[in-house]
């Protein structure tokens, strides 16, 4: 019996991988309704990658940094809102979870690439989404071409892509893959005080590439590539539910 064992003891006993701590502090701050904007700005200012992404988000029309109209983290926070900060903070552990899932299940080394430099998917493709609700509401979307989806499903099931003739099998693998990724993401949210529950995955074949933004929340686009396989992950969340 494990009565009274702490998470730390259990995580050692079960051999859990350590969790990334960098995003936790910021997520904890964002999850508190009484957080001070200056305090949040200080944390972002110390993380150059996060600062860069926040400023780019606040200047959607700018071609480069010289054209930025919003130049400080404080102004960017005022402009984008806390929902954006949350998805920015959480996208780091989310990206790690995606890379780790592909590495573990497929021995595939995904590279996190700039979503604007990625080659867009044309026409029909597979989209899978999982909603989460509770102290934070939002959705995680996974988009990939049908060829990528087939190659990934075949790799996970340990068969040749030619043996995969049933789209339902491809959809089931995609749904489970996103389930795993979103489960890791949700655990990070819960650990930061944003308790929420996941909904079952929805998987469709569609031509629609649009991701609806959660009202009042932020939206982050992530893109990954490994050889011919390219996947897009969008996350939208509002912590002020």
């Amino acid at each position, binding site marked *: 019996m*494990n009565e009274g*064992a702490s998470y730390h003891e259990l995580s050692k006993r079960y051999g859990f991988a350590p969790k990334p701590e960098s995003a936790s502090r910021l997520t904890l701050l964002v999850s508190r309704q009484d957080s001070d904007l200056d305090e949040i700005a200080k944390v972002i200012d110390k993380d150059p990658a996060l600062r860069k992404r926040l400023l780019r988000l606040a200047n959607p029309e700018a071609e480069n940094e010289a054209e930025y109209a919003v130049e400080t983290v404080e102004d960017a926070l005022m402009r984008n809102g806390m929902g954006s900060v949350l998805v920015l903070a959480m996208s780091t552990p989310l990206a790690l979870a995606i890379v780790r899932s592909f590495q573990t299940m497929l021995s595939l080394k995904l590279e996190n690439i700039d979503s604007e430099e990625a080659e867009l998917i044309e026409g029909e493709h597979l989209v899978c989404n999982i909603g989460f609700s509770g102290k934070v509401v939002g959705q995680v979307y996974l988009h990939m071409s049908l060829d990528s989806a087939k190659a990934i499903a075949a790799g996970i099931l340990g068969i040749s892509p030619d043996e995969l003739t049933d789209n339902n099998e491809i959809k089931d693998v995609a749904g489970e893959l996103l389930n795993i990724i979103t489960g890791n993401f949700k655990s990070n949210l819960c650990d930061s005080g944003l308790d929420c529950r996941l909904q079952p995955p929805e998987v469709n074949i569609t031509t629609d590439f649009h991701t609806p933004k959660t009202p009042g929340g932020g939206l982050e686009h992530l893109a990954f590539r490994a050889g011919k396989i390219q996947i897009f992950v969008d996350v939208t969340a509002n912590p002020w539910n």
Partner: protein
Amino acid sequence: MPLKILSVDDSRTIRLIVGRALRPYDCILCEASNGEEGLVVAARENPDLILLDVTMPVMDGVTMLTKLKEDPALKAIPVIMLTAESGRNNVVQIARLGVRDYLVKPFKEEQLIEKIGRNVTLKKKEAALATIPAPQA
């Protein structure tokens, strides 16, 4: 006697991966796609080990585990959680219910076999065959 292992997961993909990992071993894999089915199969098959997911439709893994531990006939069956849920509160709550081990998804097949092997004696199929006495001439 081959081992009986029950995999309770709503994802067919995970059940297939578990089946593939266990293929070289002398065991029978029973399956259920939610906690309610899992309890029925556990009562019918009396497995040596249960691999249990958390988030499932109809009845989730935490509810199934609670009911399993309340049942005198089933409570001794070792349970390994096989889930993407690794939030601090969830892990502590599930551990208190009395799980034997916990494997966070994504996992490698070798990790799964290692966890199962810590709790029950897994024998390779050839090794199990070798223990069967040859028929007398």
